[in-house]
C-alpha cells in the first residue's frame, strides 16, 4: 500500500518534471529566438566594421570573410582636419559636465521636495511632475534666442547650464522617490546632534543616496553622450562637435560610398555606452524597473 503510493507519487513527480522540462525548452527556444532578433543589428554593426567596404551592405552573414582594420583607420582619421579625439573629448566634457550638474542640482532640489516642509512645496512638486509630460520642443526656440543673445552659441554652456538647474525633472523625481524611502528618524537624530538642513543633507542623507546618485549619473552620462538635437542646435564649429554630430557630418560627407568607416565610427561612438551597460546593467535595469523610468 505505502509502496504503491510512493511509486504513484514518484511517477506523478516524474511527469511533472518532464512537463517542466518541456516548458523550459519551449521557454529557452522562444527567448533565444527573440534574443537573436534583438542582438542582430548590434552584432551586424560590430562585425561589419571589420569587413572590407564593399562587403557590408546586403551581407547577411555576421562573420567577416576577410578581416580588416582599414575602416577604423579611416574613422580615426578625423573629419576636415579635426582629429577624431577632439570629438571624443567634446563628448566627454559634455557628458561629465552633465553628470556633475545633474547630481548637484537634483540631489539638492530633491532634498527640498522630500524633507523640508515649506509653503508652496506641493504646488512646485506638481509643476515639476508636469514638466515631465511637457514636450520640450516648446522651449527650444526661446532658449535658443536667449542663449544666442548672450553669445553662447558654439559654447557648451547652453547644453550644460540646464543640467545645473535641474531642468530634467526625471532625475529630481527619481531622487525624491529614493529619499522618501529613507527613514525620517535619521533626520531627527542628526537634528538633535545639532545639524541644520545642510548638515542633514550633506552628512547624513547624501551618503545614503549613493544608489540613486549612481543610477542618475549613468543615465545622465548616456543621455548626454547620445544627445543629438542639443548639439545640432548649438554647436556649429567642427572643433566643438561631439561624436553624434561628427558622425552625422561624416555620413553626409562620405554619402553612400564608405559604409565601413561609418560602421567603425558608429561602433566607436557606442563604446562608452556599452561599457556602462556591461558594468552597471543591474543599476540601469533596476533603476528602470523600480522608478518606472524610461531608458
Amino acid at each position: 500500500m505505502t509502496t504503491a503510493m510512493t511509486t504513484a507519487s514518484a511517477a506523478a513527480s516524474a511527469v511533472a518534471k518532464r512537463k517542466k522540462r518541456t516548458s523550459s525548452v519551449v521557454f529557452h527556444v522562444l527567448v533565444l529566438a527573440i534574443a537573436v532578433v534583438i542582438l542582430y543589428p548590434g552584432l551586424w554593426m560590430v562585425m561589419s566594421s571589420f569587413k572590407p567596404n564593399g562587403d557590408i551592405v546586403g551581407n547577411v552573414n555576421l562573420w567577416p570573410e576577410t578581416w580588416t582594420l582599414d575602416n577604423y583607420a579611416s574613422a580615426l582619421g578625423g573629419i576636415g582636419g579635426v582629429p577624431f579625439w577632439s570629438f571624443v573629448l567634446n563628448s566627454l566634457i559634455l557628458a561629465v559636465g552633465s553628470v556633475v550638474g545633474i547630481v548637484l542640482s537634483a540631489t539638492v532640489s530633491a532634498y527640498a521636495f522630500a524633507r523640508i516642509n515649506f509653503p508652496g512645496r506641493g504646488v512646485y512638486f506638481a509643476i515639476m511632475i508636469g514638466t515631465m509630460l511637457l514636450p520640450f520642443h516648446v522651449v527650444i526656440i526661446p532658449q535658443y534666442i536667449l542663449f544666442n543673445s548672450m553669445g553662447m552659441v558654439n559654447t557648451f554652456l547652453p547644453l550644460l547650464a540646464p543640467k545645473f538647474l535641474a531642468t530634467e525633472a526625471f532625475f529630481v523625481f527619481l531622487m525624491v522617490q529614493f529619499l522618501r524611502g529613507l527613514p525620517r528618524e535619521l533626520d531627527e537624530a542628526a537634528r538633535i546632534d545639532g545639524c541644520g538642513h545642510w548638515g542633514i543633507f550633506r552628512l547624513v542623507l547624501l551618503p545614503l543616496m549613493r544608489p540613486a546618485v549612481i543610477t542618475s549619473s549613468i543615465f545622465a552620462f548616456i543621455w548626454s553622450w547620445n544627445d543629438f538635437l542639443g548639439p545640432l542646435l548649438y554647436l556649429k564649429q567642427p572643433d566643438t562637435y561631439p561624436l553624434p554630430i561628427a558622425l552625422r557630418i561624416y555620413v553626409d560627407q562620405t554619402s553612400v560610398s564608405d559604409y565601413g568607416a561609418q560602421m567603425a565610427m558608429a561602433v566607436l561612438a557606442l563604446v562608452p555606452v556599452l561599457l556602462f551597460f556591461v558594468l552597471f546593467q543591474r543599476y540601469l535595469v533596476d533603476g528602470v524597473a523600480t522608478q518606472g523610468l524610461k531608458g
Partner: protein
Amino acid sequence: MSATTTERGRQAGRGSARGKTTQSSPARGGAAKPPRSRAETRAGYAFLSPWLLGFGLLTAGPMLMSLYLAFTDYNLFRAPEFVGIDNFTALFADPRFLKSAQVTAIYVFVGVPVKLAAALAVALLLNAKHRGQGAYRSMFYAPSLIGASVSVAIVWRAMFIDDGVADRVQQFFGLPGGGWVGNPDMTMPMMILLAVWQFGAPMVIFLAGLKQIPAELHEAAAVDGAGPIRRFVSVTIPMLSPVLFFNLLLETIGAFQVFSSAFIISGGTGGPADSTLFYTFYLYIKGFTEFRMGYASAMAWVLVLVVGIITAILFRTSRAWVHYTGDVR
C-alpha cells in the same frame, strides 16, 4: 558653474543654522512633523533654488515667450512683428505641416500599441520562472539605451537601404525587394520597427508590475476553474493596468517627439516624399533652417495642446480601466 552651486549650498547651510537657533526650544516636540517656520521656508527655497531658477528661466519663461512668438513673424534678425493668428491659419493650409502631422499620428497610434504589445508579450514570457531570466531581461533592455543614438540610425539605414540586409531577408521569404529607405511606403514600417526594437524599457516596467501580482490571486482563479486565458484577462490585465497606463502615457508622449533617427536616416531631409518628416523634424526645419521662429513656435504650441489633450483623455478614461489596489504608488 559648480562654484555657484556650492555657494548656494553654503548659504543654505547658514540659513538652516540660523533656523536651528530659533528652533532650539521646541515647546511641542515636533518629532513626527518638522516645524514650519520662516527659517524652514528659507531653507526650502534655498535648497529648491536650482530647480526654481531652471524652471523660471528655462521652462516657464521660454514657454510664455514661445506663446508670444507664436503670434508673431520673427526670424531672429528683425524684431518680432505681431501678426495675430496668421501663423495658425497658415499652418493648417500648409501641406507639409499636414503631412508631418499625419506621419507622426501614424507613428504614435500604430507604433506605440505594437511596441507595448511586444513589451507585454515578452514580459509575460520572461515572468515564468526559468534560469537566465535576469540575463535575458538585461539583454532585451539594451536597445532602449542606444536606440535613439546616431550610431543606431546609421546602422538602420545601412540595413534597410536598397539591396541591404532587410532586402535580402524579404527576398529569402519570396517577397518583392526594393529597399525601405528610398520607398515612401516602407519608411514608416522601418521607423516603427526601430521603435519596436526598443521594447525593452516598457518590458522591464511590465516585468516589475507582474512581480507585484500576488500568486494567490492566480491560484484562487485557477481553483475556481479559470483557464490561462481567463486568468490573463481577469487577473493579470486588471492588476497590471496601472503599469500599462504609465507605459502608455510615457511612450505616447515620447513617440510624439521622435527626431534624431528620422533626421539621420533621411539625411536631414525628411524624405522620401516627406514620409519621414516627423512633427518635431518639421518644427526644426521651420525654426532653425528657415528661421521662421514665429511659425515654429506656433507649431510647438499646437504640439503642446495635442499632447495635453491626449494626456487628459488618457487620464480621464483611466478611471474606467485602470484598477488601483491598496497603496499602489
